[in-house]
């Protein structure tokens, strides 16, 4: 049966565009391209959780409320034993295999299905961050920002080659296409031309507790403004899908009733229903065959382990920033160079969000297993003025300072007994702290000591782009396909570390005011403090590696997403982001993919209002 890993129009044999990856970038691109009349081949390396996704009726998926299947047996995650990645904090040390270098799920519909689908927009400021901050430094005596001004060489900040105003119609379309819930209760959110399609759903108890805590905290004279968290999760019947029932199996799990607007059930399904799309899954692309300036075909390994090729007139990389860049690195040009790399920037400027965690224990049970993982957050720590067009100037010991952090999620344990309690208490905590077995373990399990009581803030802080933070090919380790594995080199910049130190006391105050006891944080500097476990970044927010820009000397892709060096190759995922902002990236990935795909299709018309049925 594996030889028949196909969805959509099986009769198609000739394709205008081949899209590599079926997630928020690739699935969205396929939808726009098919709608614009193109014949599209989508290649997805993962399996298919939605048998019958191309049927007349939207099928229920093979997703269920199953901790073992997802959190333990990694049903939609890559298998690190077969496809490892290596990690090193800097180029001066040897890289080692690390099972947790921002592994994104692999399945039809991509990684978003396994998120809790949070969809804030980026700020106006983000698209012109470099020029805005440089101008601010120029007119503000004593203002120093790491990575800017006299310190600019330590990072690689750049303006986006497009503005928020140019992207706003695509944001609007993205919210309608994916079905976003939310309301205008965040003063720092970007201005919008239309309301979100659905109002917020039911609040979570822990979200209300932390919101109450936040309202008692003042940030240099302004009271914090907690808000509902926008998410691509139905709060009403919308687009032929039911409202979310708040089952709680959200972050880390696929949605059993399709209430999550994940790419498979929104954009990708529309592409598959157009008659102009064929999707092959379990199809691992291993090389782009090229003459240096033009890609003629891709080589892939199918679900039976057979090597195949696929041809098209144009190719779109949407395999996630690490894997999209790796594909360029795996594709030598006839001259012996790396495809698309005349700038030397392929794989560089790799950004994650530097997350800051502050946690505490609530005396009562807060049942994080009921809800959408996160229903509220606060954006004051993004560090912008209301409306998000300008950075906020803070007082720092008498001088001015800018601290661009990020949106902060109000969460807690999701109440998972095996992974949130059992594994942690019995296997991960140091001896003397945990409960290895026996009555002690059983009592702590019944208390839900962690799973029912842990309350948690996560700040998704902006990460500076750096040339030295990059993905390249590991010189020695090869994966099960015989290919060099991605080697990730990453260290945080003073830009984000300094910002984190500034906001941590306020995060601490929120948790304390919410009523938590024993407030603590996971150590931030695990990359550099040898006595602690050396861990790789695992924010699951990947950006950069194929930076978009106007100048071929300093960017890989042009403002339309096309490679400067390759006339028929595009990037259409988070890899084109020049900067990372401080908000969950997926809605912006979708908006940018809509814009790029319209450019490839030669269509300019945008849908207004909710998408059509079917």
């Amino acid at each position, binding site marked *: *049966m594996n030889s*028949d890993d196909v969805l959509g129009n099986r009769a198609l044999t000739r394709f205008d565009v081949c899209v590599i990856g079926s997630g928020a970038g690739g699935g969205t691109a396929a939808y726009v391209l098919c709608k614009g009349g193109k014949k599209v081949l989508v290649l997805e390396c993962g399996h*298919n959780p939605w*048998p*019958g996704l191309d049927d007349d009726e939207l099928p*229920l998926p*093979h997703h*269920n*409320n*199953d901790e*073992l*299947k997802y959190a333990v047996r990694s*049903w939609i995650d890559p*298998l690190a*034993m*077969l496809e490892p990645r290596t990690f090193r904090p800097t180029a001066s040390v040897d890289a080692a295999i690390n099972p947790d270098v921002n592994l994104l799920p692999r399945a039809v519909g991509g990684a978003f299905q396994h998120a809790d689908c949070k969809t804030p927009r980026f700020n106006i400021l983000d698209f012109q961050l470099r020029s805005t901050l440089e101008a601010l430094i120029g007119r503000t005596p004593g203002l120093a920002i790491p990575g800017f001004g006299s310190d600019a060489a330590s990072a690689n900040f750049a303006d986006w080659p497009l503005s928020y105003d140019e992207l706003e119609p695509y944001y609007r379309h993205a919210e309608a296409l994916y079905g976003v819930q939310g309301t205008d209760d965040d003063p720092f959110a970007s201005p919008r031309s239309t309301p979100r399609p659905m109002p917020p759903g*039911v609040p979570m108890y822990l979200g209300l507790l932390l919101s109450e805590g936040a309202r008692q905290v003042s940030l240099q004279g302004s009271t914090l403004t907690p808000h509902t968290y926008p998410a691509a999760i139905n709060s009403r*019947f919308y687009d032929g899908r039911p*409202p979310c*029932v*708040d*089952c*709680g199996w959200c972050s880390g799990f696929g949605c*059993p*009733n399709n209430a999550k607007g994940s790419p498979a059930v929104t954009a990708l399904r529309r592409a598959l229903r157009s008659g102009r799309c064929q999707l092959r899954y*379990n199809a691992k692309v291993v090389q782009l065959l090229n003459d240096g300036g033009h890609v003629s075909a891709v080589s892939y390994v199918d679900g039976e*382990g*057979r090597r195949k090729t696929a041809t098209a007139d144009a190719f779109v990389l949407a395999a996630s920033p690490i894997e999209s860049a790796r594909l360029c690195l795996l594709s030598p040009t006839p001259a012996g160079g790396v495809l698309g790399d005349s700038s030397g920037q392929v794989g560089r400027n790799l950004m994650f969000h530097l997350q*800051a965690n502050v946690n505490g*224990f609530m005396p009562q*049970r807060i*049942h994080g297993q009921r809800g959408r993982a996160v229903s509220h957050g606060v954006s004051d720590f993004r560090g912008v003025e209301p409306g998000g067009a300008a950075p906020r100037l803070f007082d720092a010991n008498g001088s001015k300072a800018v601290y661009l952090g990020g949106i902060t999620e109000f969460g807690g344990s999701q109440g998972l007994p*095996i992974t949130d309690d059992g*594994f942690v208490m*019995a*296997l991960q905590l140091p001896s003397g*702290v945990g409960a290895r*077995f*026996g009555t*002690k373990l059983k*009592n*702590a399990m019944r208390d839900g000591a*962690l799973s029912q*009581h842990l309350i948690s803030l996560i700040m998704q802080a902006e990460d500076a782009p750096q040339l030295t933070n990059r993905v390249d090919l590991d010189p*020695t*380790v090869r994966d099960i*396909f*015989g290919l060099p594995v991605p080697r990730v080199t990453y*260290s945080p910049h003073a830009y984000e570390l*300094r910002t984190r*130190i500034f906001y*941590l006391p306020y995060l*601490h105050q929120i948790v304390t005011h919410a009523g938590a006891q*024993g407030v*603590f944080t996971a*150590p*931030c*500097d695990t990359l*550099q*403090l040898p006595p602690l476990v050396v861990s790789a970044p695992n924010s699951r927010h990947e950006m950069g590696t194929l930076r978009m820009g106007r100048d071929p000397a300093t960017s890989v892709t042009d403002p339309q997403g096309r490679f400067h060096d390759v006339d028929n190759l595009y990037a259409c995922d988070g890899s084109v982001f020049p900067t990372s902002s401080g908000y969950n990236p997926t809605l912006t990935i979708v908006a940018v993919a809509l814009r790029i795909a319209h450019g490839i299709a030669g269509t300019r018309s945008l849908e207004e209002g909710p998408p059509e049925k079917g």
Partner: protein
Amino acid sequence: MRNLKLPKVPRDWLAPDAGPGQGTGAETCQPAPQNSERGLSAALPRHLLRAAHLTRRQFLFVSGAVAAVASATRPRVARAFSFWRQERFFTDAEFSTLEALVDRILPPDRDPGAKELGVAVYIERLLMTFDCGGVGLYRRGPYSGRTPYPDYRLGTPSSRFPENGFLRSIRPSRLQELYWRAELYGSQAAGIPAELDAAQGGPLIGLRDLYPQGLASVDSVAIATAGQPFAQLSVADQDRVLAQLDSPGVLPIDPRRGNNTFLDIVIQHVLEGSFSAPEYGGNRNTQGWQMLGIEGDNQPLGYSIFSFELGTYRERPEHPMSTPNPDELAPDGSVVPIPLTPDGLAIQQGITQTTRFLELDNPGACNKT
């Protein structure tokens, strides 16, 4: 013709996977040959070896390994009664040791222990996945039928229950099958390239080898410490042996398994078998979830039900989403927390005392780039 008869297996192992596309193919359990209970009883499918890296020479090596392991099998043992235990991997003696061991890891008290929850059966089914065609690794869903559909008109639970889709499972993809064969039979027997093994610290020993070896070690330590195999000891002596097994250096650590010992692996499987969906073989009658006061899987009902008649949501009063649990709510609306046990409190305090607020205690460390 007796060999062609299907063995007695739980109904769910036989449930066909009827979905189109991926996962088609009946989940018929193909029993192992009579005299090959252990080792690679299910021959390695050729398609697993069809990766670009695998040369013919390597293939022959793997085939040889298959034959070698298959010949070192044990005779089938007589069946003793054990509820839900249908196909056998362990000998009776091993199974008794395993049941006794897991029952001290999660002991019975007012709630069932791991033995009664079916943890040993859970483990045996995992080890025998490929004796049954690789089914059962991933349950399918989307619903188990433990909660009803919501009534979207009224915003209340309906009286209509879905069928139990957890009884069906999803056939693993090629890479998933390769991964699980390495996990169970060892990386060399599964055909993982030697270079990939070497990069990860050497060959992975399969669980089907680790378990018999580990259980033998448990009995050796039990005999050395208390004079009897583990299962025949008093509970107090078993706990003494368990503490001994947990002492550093008594059981070897496995670098390919996160430096865990056999005991660590069993503890992990006790947690999985006690608190995963009952269709995996443990958590019998959801008693594991009940002792924690949680519902486990709860789709399609969930915790909030939109009513299009009301235009808003209703919550379930006994399982509220936006308010405190009813058992911690006083009549005046204030929250009266139920105290944790000293064991639960000790965990929380241990975490806060060891991690503290590191970044503020030591901000200089965080500014180092």
